[in-house]
């Protein structure tokens, strides 16, 4: 489904502070599987995730999504792919303060021009599935860590993406909430979605639902487990 060919990413190229975050990474990520990118901090996991999710471009190499080369796409095409194909769950919930949970969840769907009433129904369904429908009208500042994380998951799903990208999703969750998060991932898998997670949390990469663990170190794939 996702194919990375000789992907390199260099930051500050040509400067004394030049840093090579990824070095000739070749990787195939299968559809409808849960893949975990495991490795210590600074190993290049998040950089790779941002390239796969069309949030940044590699310095060299190509990324193919369903056989279509996407790294060369002009920005507006990338935006479209990003919006319709990927759902992002970050380490921090990154919800926008000052507006309600419901507004936060509906926000990524606004550019698609869907009717507000049907969008609201969809958002409420998503919130209900993760047991936070009662918080829909609340401002995000009032949510607990777990509630904020679940709100961000609903937001990631609002455009019904086929690929979920989660960057260190359990880093700020306690054990109970981390298990709850993995249950949600299991549900995604059962719905046919592809999930890519970066993590160095054993609770994540040792989970039964994980199909593949790719080990990263110093910007390279070290092996699989």
């Amino acid at each position: 489904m996702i194919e990375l060919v000789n992907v390199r990413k260099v930051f500050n190229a040509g400067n004394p502070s030049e840093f090579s975050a990824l070095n000739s990474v070749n990787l195939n990520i299968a559809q409808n599987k849960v893949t975990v990118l495991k490795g210590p901090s600074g190993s290049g996991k998040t950089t790779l995730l941002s390239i796969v999710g069309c949030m940044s471009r590699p310095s060299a190499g190509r990324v193919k999504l369903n056989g279509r080369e996407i790294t060369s796409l002009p920005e507006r095409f990338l935006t479209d792919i990003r919006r319709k194909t990927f759902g992002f769950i970050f380490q921090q919930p990154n919800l926008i303060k000052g507006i309600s949970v419901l507004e936060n969840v509906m926000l990524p769907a606004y550019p698609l021009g869907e009717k507000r009433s049907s969008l609201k129904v969809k958002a409420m369904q998503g919130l209900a599935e993760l047991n936070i429908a009662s918080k829909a009208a609340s401002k995000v500042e009032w949510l607990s860590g777990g509630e904020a994380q679940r709100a961000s998951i609903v937001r990631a799903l609002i455009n019904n993406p086929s690929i979920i990208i989660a960057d260190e999703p359990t880093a700020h969750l306690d054990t109970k909430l981390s298990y709850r998060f993995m249950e949600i991932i299991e549900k995604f898998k059962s719905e046919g979605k592809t999930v890519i997670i970066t993590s160095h949390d054993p609770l994540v990469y040792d989970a039964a639902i994980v199909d593949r663990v790719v080990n990263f170190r110093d910007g390279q794939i070290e092996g699989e487990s």
Partner: protein
Amino acid sequence: MVLHPTVIANLLASYISSFMVLYATYYGAQILRHWNIESGDELQLILERKTYLISTVLSYVFGLQLLSLFLYIFTADVLCPLFVGAMCAAGTLNVNGFGYPTLVLKVVNFILAGLWLVLNHADNQGYDYPLIKKKYLLLAFVAPFIVLETILQSAYFLGMEANVITSCCGSMFSEEKVSGLGSEIASLPAQPMMWIFYVSMLCTLACGFFFYFKNKGGYVYAALSMLMFLVSLVSIVSFISLYIYELPTHHCPFCIIMEDYHYIGYLLYVLLFGAVVSGIGIGALMPFRGIPSLEGILSGFIRKLALTSIIFYAAFAMFVTYEILTSSLVISYEVVY
């Protein structure tokens, strides 16, 4: 003279255009030489990023280029009181040998810049840079003209001498004068020219509508729109100006931009240049309709261009007809002096 605000604006616009076009051409040459969309090389990815910058810069530069034609005419018009003998832009442009060549280049560059913008817009619609090499080839062709225009324009403005006695438009676009393109056009008989104008306008519009609705004859319309552009320019000198000035002997194509005539010239020229650029833009894009990434998109864009060109030509014809119908001038016979 060179410190006049409009002259500074002209020179500044010209230098910026030339500098940016040369910068873009340098990277355009690299793209022409090294572009390979199949490759994931670092150079290819750098070029892919660079082309955004160049396209954006050139869009503004060529937009400025389009405006600079009218700024140039406006400048020539406002400077005319400074020269003995000049009554309008026609006289100012004649103060030295660089004024008219610059104007001709500006007209040519307006069309070329417009075509580049059309090509660039079409290229941006495709996900795989389908026209990238074509648009940078066109840029390599346009760049020397832009630089030459800057050189000629600089020579024109910097070489202006206040003590030069120049010619007025009455003598430059006169039926009496025996030589010069302006006088030759001015001496064309008004009534036959009017027939030629209206018949060719009808043919152009009919062909345009046929292409718009039937999607056939795109190349013919592109050629006709170019022809119509030339016919219209000749017609302005030959008979349209006569009706606007309500004088049977005044053929100047520049006085119509003056306040006395409600700046109607600017409107006519904007419509005319807009019509020709969108018209020949159709011809420039026709060969690329079969490119897979532009399929369905390009046809829509070409139709929009056709409609724009038709509307502009129709509006031009309407304003000309309005001027003729409301004019006190009646040309029932050829005036011979």
